Every structure is written in structure tokens, then in C-alpha cells.
């Protein structure tokens, strides 16, 4: 879902509806800004070269 484009308000409204998110307009405006931040973070991480790297497996207990 994360794309090189910014999250549009239309896309935000659609995803919010699918996720069951409701609220007053001011609340949704602020949430839209935060959701855009989430997409920006995804873009930042897309810029990291993770070739050949496996995800950190959180639930394997460390045994160092």
C-alpha cells in the first residue's frame, strides 16, 4: 500500500472506512497527518538496503 506518492486524503478516507475509523472532522484531519507520517516512515525505510537480510524474529528468545 505504501507508495512513492504521498497518501492522498481520498485514500486515507477509504482506508479509514475499511478500518472502521470514525471521528469528528478535526480528529480525522489530525489522524490524516499522522497517517501521512506513517507513509513517510515507510518511504524512509524503503531507502535502506535490506538485500539478503532477514527480519529480526522477535519471538526467538535471545541466548547470547
Amino acid at each position, binding site marked *: 500500500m505504501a507508495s512513492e506518492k504521498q497518501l492522498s486524503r481520498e485514500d486515507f478516507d477509504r*482506508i479509514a472506512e475499511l478500518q472502521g475509523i470514525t471521528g469528528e472532522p478535526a480528529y480525522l484531519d489530525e*489522524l490524516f497527518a*499522522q497517517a501521512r507520517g506513517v507513509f513517510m516512515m*515507510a518511504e524512509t*525505510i524503503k531507502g535502506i538496503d*535490506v538485500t539478503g537480510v532477514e527480519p529480526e524474529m522477535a519471538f526467538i528468545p*535471545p*541466548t547470547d
Partner: protein
Amino acid sequence: MDTLEICYMSAGDLSKLVKSKEISPVEIIDAHLTRIEATEPVLNSFITLLADESRKAAKQAEKDIQAGRYKGPLHGIPVGLKDLYNTGGVRTTSGSKIFDNFIPDEDCTVAAKFQQAGAILLGKLNMHQFAYGPTGENPDYGHMHNPWNPEMITGGSSGGSGSAAAAGQCTITTGSDTGGSIRIPAALCGIVGLKPTYGLVSRWGLTALSWSLDHPGPMVRTVEDAAITMNVIAGHDPKDVASAKVDIPDYTTALTGDVRGLRIGMPKEYFEAPLDPQVRKAVLDAISVLESMGAVVKEVSFPMFNQSQAISSTVLMAEASAFHRDLLEQDGHQLYEPVRQRLEAGLFITAADYLRAQQARTILDQEGRRLLDEVDLLAGPTEPIVAPEIMAPRVLAGEQEIGVVGALTQYTRPYNINGFPAISVPCGFSDTGLPIGLQLAGKPFDELTVLRAAHAYEQATDWHTRRPPL
């Protein structure tokens, strides 16, 4: 011994007097309850105070000790638990009125360990709602207030633990640290906060925020007390799927004062980030003290530090939203609006983005491990600022104005991502009288080195002896 003197004694010192029967747990608890009564209207550290229960427990502890049944250094010592640690028969709110009447059937593992050690539960400590914030705001139970200046934040999310320890309301407190929530209030309130290695202290029976980033740990006034507490609470717990199976040392053996030959790395990226000049000076001076004691200090590079906010936020937000999905659907309208927004924003993170963040997390982890082959510890500021005003949305860090959440978690998040042990220890004050913290981080499961360096620094300075003007 007067009330205030008892309340500011460390567990290490109090325990000697308790063991030799020079002081009774009854006297200790009475002193703390008096102190709480005097300071709580200002600080708001507690959600639930167990005055009658703790007095009763103190009488029993006194009886046991008089009969020769001394359990160890925490016997008869008051402990306060962040209010997301389940306590059997005692309400556990997670900082939200949604759980105002939630009474767990049994203790979490950490609470049970304290009980077995003979510690006396004084109460449940105030916190940012559901631990989902670094400032210590709570609209349901009241915001927490910094003992050094009550108009300023304690930091969070373990804000009540920070203020209670700093103000002498409780000898031992605990927090939980997902993006900095032990170390942030420790630094801003001028106490010691240890985030242990991930998996070292059981998460079982704590309300989760982010499964792979949550770390329970002690918040206390001295490094010795952190070591004593770790001796009680660390260790494998089969009930926690991420619990580490490692040998647990006696952490008090770290308290030698000797840092000769210890290799300390200062990531240059830390000092290139937004940073208050007074904090910079205090932290550099602190590292110089360690160098004067024989540590070998050098600059290192930690490039993945600059990606830590994005990695941490993606993982944390996705996991928090997953954990609280039902709560959001059923009771979202009752949540503190910023917490609700963070939880709902997390629903926009895709599985692919979460997993890519976990891949990037591996790279950050590997980079940290390579650094800790070159050096024994990484040192830097815990916080780039001192405590800002309550509800301030932005802060000035050096010459840059930045969001308060990003500022407060700037230096703490990397060690949640990689799970390395990291401690905050007081290293000075601003010209406005607000505390500054030094952060030391070490190799996984090398709490001994982290504690050794922190203790040596602490004992070479007097910051830990200062008291807030309350």
C-alpha cells in the same frame, strides 16, 4: 532518624539497618506514607496507594525479621509498580479509566518476585495512558509533575515511577521501556533507570504496548539499588515466550568502582543530532570523568542511529495497534485522543512495511554488535533536552525546534530496537535546576559492565545525592 532521611536512603543502605534490626519496616513504611501525604498533591505519582495494606505487610515483615526469617536486601523495603504490572487483588488500570475496576487474579511474574523477596508494595504508579507516550500526561488520573519543577513533565511513560523515586516517595520503583519509557523519566527526574537486555526480565502479566520492544526494569535513586533489584527480578520465565535462558549473575558484583581499561565509544551521530548545549556539556564532562578514571574513550560511528525513529515507530505502532485492536473498536472513544490517534495511525502500516522495518532492525542490531566488538559501552545523552513544560507540543533542542515525542525518544529508541541493556544515570543539572542524564549502553546480557561504569561514575560525583526542592 527523621522521615526525610529514611525516605532518601537507598535500599542498599536501608537493608543493612533492617537486617541489623536498627530500623523496622513499620518505621520505613510510615515515613514513606508521611512523605507521600505531603508531596502527592503536587506530584500525582500514584494511581492506587496501598496505605493500610503496606502498613499491615510492614508489621508482618517486622515480625518475620525479628524471628530471624530475613529474606534479603529487599525485605521490608517499599516498592511501587508502574500501573501496568498486574497485581493480584489490586487494581491495575494501565493508566486508563477503561480499566479503573480491573483487578487481576494474580501477580505478574515481577510482582511475585518482589513479594517473595519480602518487598512491601506501597502502591501502583501513574503512567502515560497504556504506556503510549513519552511525556507523562494522563487525562484520566491526572498528569504527573516533575519534583524538580512541578510545571514540567516527568517524562514517560513511567512518569509516576520517576517522580516517586526522585521525591523520596518510594525506595524502589519499576517501569517499562518500549521507546524510552524507563530512561526518559529517569533522566528528566534525576534518577537511575535501567532498561535491561530484552528478555532478561519477564514481561508476563504486564500490559503490552509492543511485544518485541517492551522491557520491564528498575527505576531507583542509585546504581546499587538497580543491581539489587535486578538480582530479584531478572531470570528466565517460561510464561514469557521471549524470556531469555541465560545465567543470572549477582549484579552487585559489578559495583567495584573500577573502569580502568573500559572502552567507551561516543557515537558521533549523537552529537550531530539536535541537542541542548547545556546537556551536551554535562554529558561530555561526564564522559571525561570516566576517562579520568581510566576508561579509554573514542569517537565511533553509528549510522543506523539516524534510521532508528522510522524503524522503531513502524514496529511499535504496528504492534501496539495489533495488541489494542479490540480496545480500539470497543472503547476507542474513551481513549486519550493522542493515544487513540497513535493506535489508529498504526492501522495504516502494511505487513510488508512492518517486515521491512524488521529487516532494517536486523541491520541496526548488527551495526550495534559490530560497534560493541570495538568498544565495551556506547555513551551519550539520554535526552537531548531537560524537562519541558507539561503539554508543550514542541521543544527547542539546541537551535532546532522539534516535536516533543521525537525529541524525548531520540537517543533511547535504538536500544529498544536492538534490545541492548541501557542505563540512564544523573550527570548534572541545567541552569534552571533540571536534571540531565547520561546514557550508557552495552552488549546484550552484559548488564555487569553497564552497571560497573554507571556506578563508578555515580560514586565519583554527587549528582545522586541532590534532592528536589519539595
